[in-house]
């Protein structure tokens, strides 16, 4: 197991190189002259040249890349053009944590409701409950994020006045964005749990459990769910990644000052170091989460660990 963890961490190295390379090249692939765009529309040639010199754009490409990596490793992602503060500070002061908070609550909601719905569906196959839950799941999957967010605001904030319209701070602020963010995940997890559970309940060892005189509930939770969860864990990990993407839209709709909004704002302001930094942080976060998921998959499914 230890060997596996070490190997799995080693495997993230090429991914990290790819990610940093992609983020780095972004600066060079954008149409036009990055320095010119960043210096602003009214900059004179000297200012542009100064900007180019500051950004190190006159150095050979590989040198720039290694400098970028080296700086990133020490936590230096440059300064924001918009606010002149260090990018890492902008990200980690509060925004990063807000988004992570949102993603975790969203994932938790998705897992909770997804699992419950999936189990109910699987154990009552073709019943009214099963059919309605799966129809709801289908809706949850097909609804666009922003539309769902707007509808929730309309219903709970505008009409009923139960929850705040936008912003961040108290737990009441978290509810609607988390629901918006988690719905699609819940739907996917529900469908996945259902099919995985149905497959497991058909296995020989479930019949063995019944033949031992184990009660229905225990068969479902102890013998069924534990095995059914194995494929679900993978989906949860992938969901967390797409949640980060969803955060961009959700944070905009609910005016939450997280990473998503930071990206949008920075793109608008042509704040390239900021965009670069945020994307890099998101990508690293995604890689880390997936590594954790892979490792926990191993822990759950002991069979994979055979060799």
């Amino acid at each position: 197991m230890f060997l596996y963890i070490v190997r799995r961490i080693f495997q993230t190295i090429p991914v990290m190189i790819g990610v940093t390379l992609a983020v780095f090249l972004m600066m060079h692939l954008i149409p036009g002259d990055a320095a010119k765009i960043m210096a602003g529309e009214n900059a004179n040639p000297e200012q542009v040249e100064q900007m180019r010199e500051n950004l190190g754009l006159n150095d050979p490409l590989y040198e720039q890349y290694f400098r970028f990596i080296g700086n990133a490793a020490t936590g230096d992602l440059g300064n924001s053009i918009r606010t002149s503060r260090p990018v890492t500070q902008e990200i980690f002061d509060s925004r990063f944590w807000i988004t992570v908070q949102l993603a975790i609550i969203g994932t938790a909601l998705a897992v909770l409701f997804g699992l419950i719905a999936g189990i109910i569906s699987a154990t009552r196959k073709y019943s009214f409950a099963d059919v309605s839950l799966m129809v709801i799941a289908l809706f949850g999957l097909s609804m666009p994020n922003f539309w769902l967010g707007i509808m929730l605001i309309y219903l709970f904030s505008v009409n009923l006045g139960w929850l705040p319209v936008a912003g961040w701070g108290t737990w009441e602020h978290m509810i609607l964005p988390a629901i918006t963010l988690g719905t699609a995940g819940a739907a996917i997890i529900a469908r996945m749990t259902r099919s995985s559970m149905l497959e497991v309940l058909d296995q020989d060892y479930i019949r063995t459990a019944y033949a031992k005189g184990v009660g229905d509930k225990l068969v479902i939770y102890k013998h069924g769910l534990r095995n059914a969860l194995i494929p679900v864990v993978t989906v949860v990990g992938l969901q967390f990644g797409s949640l980060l993407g969803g955060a961009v839209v959700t944070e905009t709709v609910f005016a939450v000052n997280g990473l998503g909004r930071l990206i949008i704002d920075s793109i608008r302001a042509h704040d390239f170091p900021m965009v670069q930094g945020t994307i890099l942080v998101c990508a690293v976060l995604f890689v880390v989460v997936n590594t954790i998921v892979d490792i926990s998959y191993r822990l759950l499914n002991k069979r994979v660990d055979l060799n």
Partner: protein
Amino acid sequence: MNLTKEDKILEVKNLCTSFFTDEGEVKAVDGVDLSIEKGKTLGIVGESGSGKSITSLSILRLLQEPAGRIKEGEVIFKGEDLVKKTKKQMREIRGNNISMIFQEPMTSLNPTLTCGEQIAESIRIHQKLNKKKAWAKAVDMLKLVGIPSPEKRAKQYPFELSGGMRQRVMIAISLACNPELLIADEPTTALDVTIQAQILELIKNLQKELGTSLMIITHDLGVVAEMCDKVAVMYCGKVVEYADVKTIFTNPKHPYTIGLLNSVPKHDEDVEGDLSIIPGSVPNPFHLPEGCRFAPRCPHAKEICLTKLPHLEETFDGDKVRCWIHSEEWEKQGKAVNAHE
């Protein structure tokens, strides 16, 4: 053959189990009568589709409802009809009074629980022992079924064990609460011959030691000859012959039993030329023949066989056979209808 009720641990009377599918009803078990004497071994043999496994699942009411259902009949275990029991009562019987071993040791054990936990589970349920005591008993059971270093093995997961070892764990689970009846559904089919020999020997010895009655479901006539006292031969949901093991192998009476015995290639006997065969194949379960189910493949079949279902009748030597050949009507019949060359 006159047995009092007390001598029989289990009596199955006119058991009918059907599966209801989109294409219609499959009468998987259709009027089966069987009984097992205390401490004895009954073998049920038949090919796929004969209903032998469904019979065993029906006894323990382990069918996947609502698709599979016992339509009628009684399963008398120690004087009480299991078909009439509530779900809860059945749970108390399963794994406790009657337990079961399944064919595939690979898939019949839960991959995410250790072997010890899986044995201890039924002990905890039925004997209300605490975790620690149940675990100790589980280790004892592993020792009983001949697993070396049982303490270590108890902590291992099924995938860490060989097929033979896993089947021993299955046996340990099934015998953990000292059941009066053990149903073994193809217990050695998935195993290699030398491992099969070990497992059969183990079951035999434990049966002697614990006095358990045994019901073995198998397609392997060798296993039947080795293990059983009585044999029921099944074909298409019906028992076609029911006799002592000796009678079945030395003086079989149903044409299907005879055909089956002749078509097995034997390792300890030379067969010159071709094997004798049963022509054709098992009929479609949705459209079973009207008369005797074996009639379309039977070399002796006559008019009556195609139209009227024979009863399971006792012959002169106590052998029960479902075939018109042994009836009085037979003489009155004309020529055989299946002209196979």
